[in-house]
């Protein structure tokens, strides 16, 4: 069975914004009945546009026009969108009206996919998956650190065998110091750049011209910060400005050898274009230090890596990540007696109920769930997926829900990795006798996230997207344990 669907990825970065629209097939494996997204084909790729700003605010009208234009050019109706996402990243996510913009985009997309802002771990994860997941899967023994360097932030992700193990974020980007194109005359400084110039004792402000040595000092600071993050050498970058530039530290485990470093984002695109034979663009032609940062990185110790390991997509890694990796597809036998309850968005993931959870654990979590009037989600962890274990856990949970008179209309979503959705849901609801607005989504790799979105039912499956990602450190321990 195959059915065609549309995927949309929208990335609103510090400097630029872009969209990619793809068609894909929902392909159901005749043996396992598991449905996957296959044959993802890009059908539309927008031009990169400067993220529109008016007086330090995002220009909501201009952004909305871009979104409408992209959807129209990609010939896609919001109703037919199965997955993907829209993400405000870098400094854009910190604009005062970022939340309002997110709400506008959600309305425009008719709530068809996640739209969120300021989710640096998600950005790191997406950039890694969008740029070098394929490379990582083929070189399973080699750790890869991807630096997604945009205008405002660098999102770092350490991955192994196609899985992101750890994420980090630094305020290292091309556009903290905006200059007049063709010169180094300062047009605007972010507050991070102001702190940095002060620490470097560079007494320059808007209207002043930076000297070559001053530019080099700024860039050396950035590269030192990146190197410290990649190598896990905190002492390299412990100044006040350095601490200010760290959003989420990337804690690289000790003893990790032969790390490959790749770069994505706008700076990554510049590096790989140059390596493929393109000449450098003219001095500061984008009005920032992106070209200079790219050049300095190419003279750093990582240059050899950049030459030898070219990622799948450098310039649009985040948007490709959104498109290809942000939507998981549920199992084909999920428990969903009432499909009309979907989509469910912004569901908080409140905890875990495991086979070895105590009755008190279950009671406490159920109490928490009951307080989430708009619905909430719980991860189910089965130690074994044999009949008695599943039945036992279901009956314990069922008993607690019954005893607490869990509201019958309140959405309750369970996420489980094993293919047990229908049987688990049926035992919990006593085969339909217990009235609950319960959804059990199975065959899902549950990510360490704060929120989940469950999309509408389409050909027996639902799209699932996570956001509000935690640092992936726990995942690393999981991966270690698995090995």
């Amino acid at each position: 069975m195959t059915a065609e669907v549309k995927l949309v990825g929208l990335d609103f970065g510090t400097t630029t914004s872009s969209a990619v629209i793809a068609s894909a097939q929902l392909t159901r494996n005749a043996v396992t009945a598991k449905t996957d997204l296959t044959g993802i084909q890009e059908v539309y790729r927008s031009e990169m546009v400067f993220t529109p700003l008016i007086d330090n605010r995002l220009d909501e009208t201009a952004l909305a026009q871009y979104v409408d234009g992209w959807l129209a050019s990609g010939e896609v109706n919001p109703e037919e969108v199965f997955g993907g996402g829209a993400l405000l990243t870098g400094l854009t996510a910190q604009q005062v009206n970022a939340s309002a913009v997110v709400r506008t985009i959600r309305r425009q997309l008719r709530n068809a996919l996640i739209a969120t802002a300021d989710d640096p771990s998600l950005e790191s994860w997406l950039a890694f998956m969008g740029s070098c997941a394929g490379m990582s899967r083929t070189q399973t023994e080699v750790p890869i650190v991807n630096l997604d360097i945009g205008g405002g932030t660098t999102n770092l992700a350490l991955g192994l065998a196609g899985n992101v193990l750890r994420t980090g974020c630094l305020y290292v980007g091309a556009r903290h110091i905006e200059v007049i194109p063709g010169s180094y005359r300062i047009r605007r400084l972010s507050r991070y750049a102001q702190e940095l110039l002060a620490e470097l004792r560079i007494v320059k402000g808007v209207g002043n011209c930076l000297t070559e040595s001053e530019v080099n000092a700024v860039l050396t600071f950035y590269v030192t910060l990146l190197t410290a993050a990649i190598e896990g050498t905190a002492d390299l970058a412990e100044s006040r400005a350095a601490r200010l530039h760290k959003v989420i530290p990337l804690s690289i485990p000790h003893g990790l050898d032969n790390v490959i470093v790749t770069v994505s984002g706008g700076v990554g695109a510049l590096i790989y274009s140059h390596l493929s034979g393109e000449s450098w663009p003219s001095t500061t032609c984008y009005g920032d230090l992106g070209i200079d940062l790219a050049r300095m990185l190419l003279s750093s110790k990582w240059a050899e890596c950049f030459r030898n390991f070219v990622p799948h997509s450098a310039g649009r890694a985040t948007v490709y990540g959104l498109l290809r990796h942000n939507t998981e597809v549920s199992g084909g036998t999920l428990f969903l007696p009432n499909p009309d309850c979907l989509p469910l968005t912004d569901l908080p993931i409140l905890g875990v109920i495991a086979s070895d959870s105590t009755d008190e654990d279950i009671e406490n979590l159920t109490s928490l769930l009951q307080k989430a009037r708009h619905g909430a989600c719980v991860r189910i962890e089965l130690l074994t997926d044999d009949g008695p274990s599943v039945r036992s856990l279901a009956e314990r949970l069922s008993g607690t829900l019954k005893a607490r008179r869990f509201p019958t209309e309140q959405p309750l979503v369970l996420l489980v990795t094993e293919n047990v959705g229908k049987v688990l849901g049926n035992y919990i609801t006593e085969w339909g006798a217990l009235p609950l607005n319960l959804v059990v989504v199975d065959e899902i790799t549950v990510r360490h996230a704060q929120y989940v979105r469950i999309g509408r039912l389409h050909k027996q499956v639902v799209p699932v997207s996570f956001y509000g990602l935690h640092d992936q450190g726990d995942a690393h321990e999981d991966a270690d344990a698995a090995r």
Partner: protein
Amino acid sequence: MKTLTPLADIHVPDVLRDQTYTTSCMNQQFSFQGLKALLGAADYSKAGERNAGLAASSETAREAARGILSRLTLQHLYDHPLTNEQGSVDSVMRVNYDVDGDAFATLSTMTAGELKNHLLRSPESEVERAGSALTGVMASAVAKLCDVHELILIARKVSRPTTARTLLGAPGRLSSRLQPNHPTDDIRGITLLCYLGLSLGSGDALIGVNPAVDTVESVSSLLYHLDGLRRRIGAPTQICVLAHIKTQLSCLERGAPVEILFQSLAGTESTNLLEFDISVDLLDRGYRRMAENGPLKGKAEQFMYFETGQGSELTYGRHSGIDMTTTEALCYGLARRYDPFMVNNVTGFIGPETHCDSFEMILSNLQDHFMGKLLGLPMGMAPCYTLHSNITLEGQQMATELLTAAGANYYMDVALNTDRMLAYFDTSGHDDQTLRETHGRLPASEFLEWAVSRHIFSRGTQGEVTRGPHWGDPTQFCDSEAEFNELLCATPAVPSFKSAGPRPADEVQREMRVNQAIGREAIHAELQIDELEKITSFRVIETEAADQEAHLNSPKLGSRLAASSLDRLSPEDCQVQILVSDGLSAEAVHHNANDLLPVILDGLKGRTVSTGQPLLARYGRVKLAEPVAERLEANVIVHLIGERPGGDALASRSLSAYLVYRLTDPSVRTAASQFSGNEDVRFEVTVISNIYSGGLPALEAGGVIVERVSDILAHQAAGNRLESLLESEADRQEGGDAQ
């Protein structure tokens, strides 16, 4: 384009009363009532003929029949057309009479035995001329008189070259059809199997996919994909998606690249019409459409592709008393009408009810190849088997060696012998290259040039062709390792691409063979009733199959309740009855029942569905649910039964649930009848398959089964009608939401 003789213009003699053929041998009298019985008795003893009651009662009786047959003139065979159940000549038989009248006039007084001698003594041109004078029945008669050497010797005199982008069947050539089937039509898996086959030098006859889904959309999409792949790689060959002819013609109408038009054929009109949904008129239209609008118009001299194989008519019970060899020959008489590019014989595919062991399969293949070539067809061969027969890989390989000696035009390339969709075993690209090296054959010349340019083959200074440095390396067609790995992830049953000479490396062979061994063991395992009784208390019932051999060789026996069980069962006031039987894998029951049954019982009870004590049947077949449902007067039978194992060891533990709904209410029965077009419909069936740890886990399957049973009872429908009702319901809801 060949002119198709209108059916009405083909002269067929009037039907005569059956004649009794008698002879004596060492004072023993032998008598055969009618030509059909004589032809049946004259053949080697095969399971199909034995099951149909056509096989000779003894070896002497067979030789007696052969003796009579050898003395019958061709005119006698001409004057006695075989008839259908209604006693008339059907369209397939009629087409068989579209012979070269002048040539027949020169041969008509020859006996069948004299014709065999004539063919053995004559050069190729005369064998070809003689073939054009023969009907399928005459070819079958001669085949039954030939021993193995003769079947090979006469067939190898005839080369039947055909031309599309490549020239097939020229002397010294051995081609292959790449068959990259995938269980879900996943284009990644199909692509990788194409890459593998092409890297093995396979696919010069055709790249042809048997689709899992036979819809215009899906088939068109596959056609475009194969076309794009072929163009990108530049291999001179042709593509085909082996869907039903109607689907392909619709694809052609919409502009899809239907380069070669495929259809399976049977040797009786009733099988073609009622089972394959085709007629001579439809085939004629397809032929003309391809000649006028086919993408290879002007390039290809031939563009039709037919698949046949002994036993399909018998399996459907539509053989009209005609033996398997003769119905197969009648297929060839029909195929000949369309001057096909390829004819593909898959004798061995059906199972032990037609060919129980390697010997029977090999002989049938040699007969088929002989008859096809004699009747003027470009015969490709696919000696094959399923695990529930006693045909082995070694038997299949012996068949290919003999058929190559006989001059087969081409074989299949099913990667590592394992068809990932059809759960059977066929020849592989490694086999094809092994045969080319053993017998000094080469692929089609156009394809060979391309393969040499890709270093798949190398040409030495003396013109000798050997495997090249890229032989067997599918990665050569991928842009990156990542791309290759993505394709690999989507392709089941490919443990490795390592080879040793033209063969798969030993470690690969070992893995594939152990999978087959486990599959066979699952088929021959006996149901452990005592162990199953620990899960729940069963009522044990018997089928008419007295033992496993009878069960495997005759599907009918396992479909019927034994008289003792019929007596024990009586109507019960229960909506649902659960029936467990071994089917073709008792291991499937053993590995799933423990998780599955308690959930079904809990679920039905939880939903207040009345259920009787579960039944357990050894040697059961799918259809056993019907007499059980009628005897117990149940609304629904949940029949849990072991599936036919394929090439995946784990999948030999795969169980299916057949939810059989008994149609009793007259209005419901009318609705079912209108939906299916079958006035006599008594049951509707919903199937949930692949219940095993690698597919739908037993525990979850329990939940799915309970929900489906609830749907069946609520909607008073099962199968496609139920799906249609559920879809309409969902559409109505969506419509309501939209408003």
